[in-house]
């Protein structure tokens, strides 16, 4: 199993090959047997192809971060994967395999770069440990590569920044450092978990532009986790919309924005302000529910205008229309 994994990992991937495939993933908080247990993720399915960007979008608590962290087996101590499969290049991953992949084939860009850096270590030593472990580099090689990486993320004075400690960096600079750290092991897939939420708006757009160009330059696959539809629209090839622990709609980003099929996606788009077009903004009434294990119906029905008796049964993610989309709704538009 392990050797399988590694040989598969070394095979060059052509654009369009599926790198990561998540099927019916379930993440449960607390005891699975407890009827009051909460499923952070209850049956999420999505995939990422080599070189493409997938956006996972949804409100806080919809399970988007949990789904991504489950892929690299980094769930918090109270959460466990209780169902579904995660495969990498066609091979189903065990938790052990996932740990072997992380940092090497799959890198993470965390929510808040500032706290994700060890406060006592210099930027240089934090990148160096990755190069030593995954790239087998030693001595002067390491130093040269670190400067290279920092230049790659458009840092003007790499030598100065390399010698600094996290608390001496600005938020944007820390984010660039973390991106350089993620690139150090030359991964094939990067999971970016709300990479810009902690930053000022102007810095945000710089970082997003940087990520976008790096992704194209280095032929990276990118999973972009965000609650910001604007980010999704500008950066991603495909989108998965999550609601209460489920993917409710997925497909090419352009198509989803042109004609959202799920009522939740429609509501989300209607609730997003547009900078240039003056329009009436419509919120979604009610609040996202806790995803309880015992829940059986469509989790959006409390807030949905189209809800009827059919919604007491849970809709599955079914192919929809013509453009490679899938929607989980009995009344998809």
């Amino acid at each position, binding site marked *: 199993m392990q050797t399988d994994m590694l040989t598969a990992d070394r095979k060059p991937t052509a654009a369009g090959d599926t790198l990561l495939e998540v099927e019916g993933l379930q993440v449960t908080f607390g005891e699975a047997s407890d009827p009051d247990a909460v499923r952070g993720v209850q049956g999420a399915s999505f995939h990422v192809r080599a070189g493409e960007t997938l956006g996972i979008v949804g409100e806080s608590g919809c399970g988007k971060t949990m789904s991504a962290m489950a892929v*690299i087996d*980094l769930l918090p101590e109270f959460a466990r994967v209780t169902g579904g499969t995660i495969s990498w290049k066609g091979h189903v991953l065990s938790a052990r395999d996932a*740990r072997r992949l*992380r*940092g*090497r084939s799959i*890198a*993470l860009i*965390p*929510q*808040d770069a500032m*706290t*994700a*850096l*060890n*406060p*006592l*270590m210099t930027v240089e030593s934090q990148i160096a*440990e*990755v190069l030593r*472990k*995954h790239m087998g580099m030693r001595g002067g090689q390491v130093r040269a590569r670190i400067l290279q990486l920092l230049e790659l993320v*458009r840092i*003007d*004075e790499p030598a*100065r920044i390399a010698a*600094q*400690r996290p*608390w*001496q*960096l*600005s*938020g*944007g*600079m820390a984010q660039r450092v*973390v991106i350089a*750290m993620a690139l150090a*092991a030359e991964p094939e897939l990067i999971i970016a978990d709300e990479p810009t939420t902690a930053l000022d708006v102007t*810095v945000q757009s*710089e970082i997003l532009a940087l990520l976008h160009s790096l992704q194209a330059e280095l032929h990276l696959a990118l999973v972009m986790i965000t609650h910001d539809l604007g980010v999704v629209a500008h950066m991603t090839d495909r989108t998965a919309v999550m609601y209460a622990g489920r993917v409710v709609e997925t497909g090419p980003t352009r198509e989803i924005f042109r004609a959202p099929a799920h009522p939740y996606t429609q509501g989300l788009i209607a609730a997003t302000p547009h900078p240039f077009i003056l329009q009436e903004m419509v919120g979604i009434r009610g609040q996202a529910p806790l995803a309880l294990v015992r829940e059986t119906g469509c989790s959006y029905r409390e807030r949905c205008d189209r809800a009827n008796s059919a919604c007491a049964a849970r809709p599955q993610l079914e192919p929809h229309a013509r453009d490679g989309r899938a929607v989980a709704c009995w009344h998809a538009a």
Partner: protein
Amino acid sequence: MSNEMTSTNPRAGLAKPRRRSDRMPGWLDMSALSWLGGRLLTSVVAVAVVMTAVFLVTRLISDPARRMLPLGASQEQIDALNASLGLSDPLYVQYLHFLRDLATLNLGESIWYHLPSLEVALGRLPSTLALLAIALAISIAVFVPMGVLASTRPGSLADRLVTGVSLAGLSVPQFWLGAMLVLVFSVGLGWFPTSGAGSLSHAILPAVTLSLSLGGRLAQVTRTSFLDQGRMPYVTMAKAKGFSTAYVLRKHVLRNALLPILTIISWDSARMITGHAVIVEVLFARPGFGRLVIESVKRQDFTQLQACVFVGAVVIVVVNIVTDMLARIIEPRRASR
């Protein structure tokens, strides 16, 4: 983008142009020196306040000469002693003399030993320090690993056990614990002498007694510190970089978690010299600094007591400064706050 280059921290910018040719180690720059100056000043004030309190208590409220002399002493005898001790001068003159003597470290002669009281007090310190060193070694070797173990599985049986033991360690009076240890290991099993000093075996039971209350705190602080650090995002990030839990614990968590532990160790040991060690030395009849304090009280030797308070205050102040300085070296972030 160049705007972003300048760090949000103004001091970081200032620290940057530091020349490599500077002979000073990195942490000892101007801001560190001014910090140290401030700390030293506060410390001098603190010691002065302590000694002033002692002065007021001894001169204002009580009549030291009357207490020092045997019960039926005549007024002449009392006056003579007062004059020889400078106690018949007006209070402010006494205070000024007192401060002058303090500044020149002239704390008078011990009434009992007829030796400079400061010398007597300092002479008793090594024995106490040796005892403390053994106690420290025991509690670091036993209780720090216990705290780390507890932190790895919060809520587990091991965790509850460690929490219970450390709480018990903090709740047991030293003089009783020592007595029980003597009862079992000296009286019952005959492994160690019951009291006295001289050899290492004399020091074992007192050191174990001392180490338990120090260790109780140590285990608690270690546990909390490792738990806190283990939940930091940088730990998740280090794991995401592909490192094993053991590596992350060793390379990332350990150093970050160490600071509160070091702080507790040095603060508590300073406090032990003037606190728990007194009780343990009395219990085991060890001729250390703490026993001197109690003996001075029993012998009505108030110059000696005064010198002991002075030494105790200086020890605490010095240890506090050294601790904070170490903390600044370990965690330079503190210096920029």
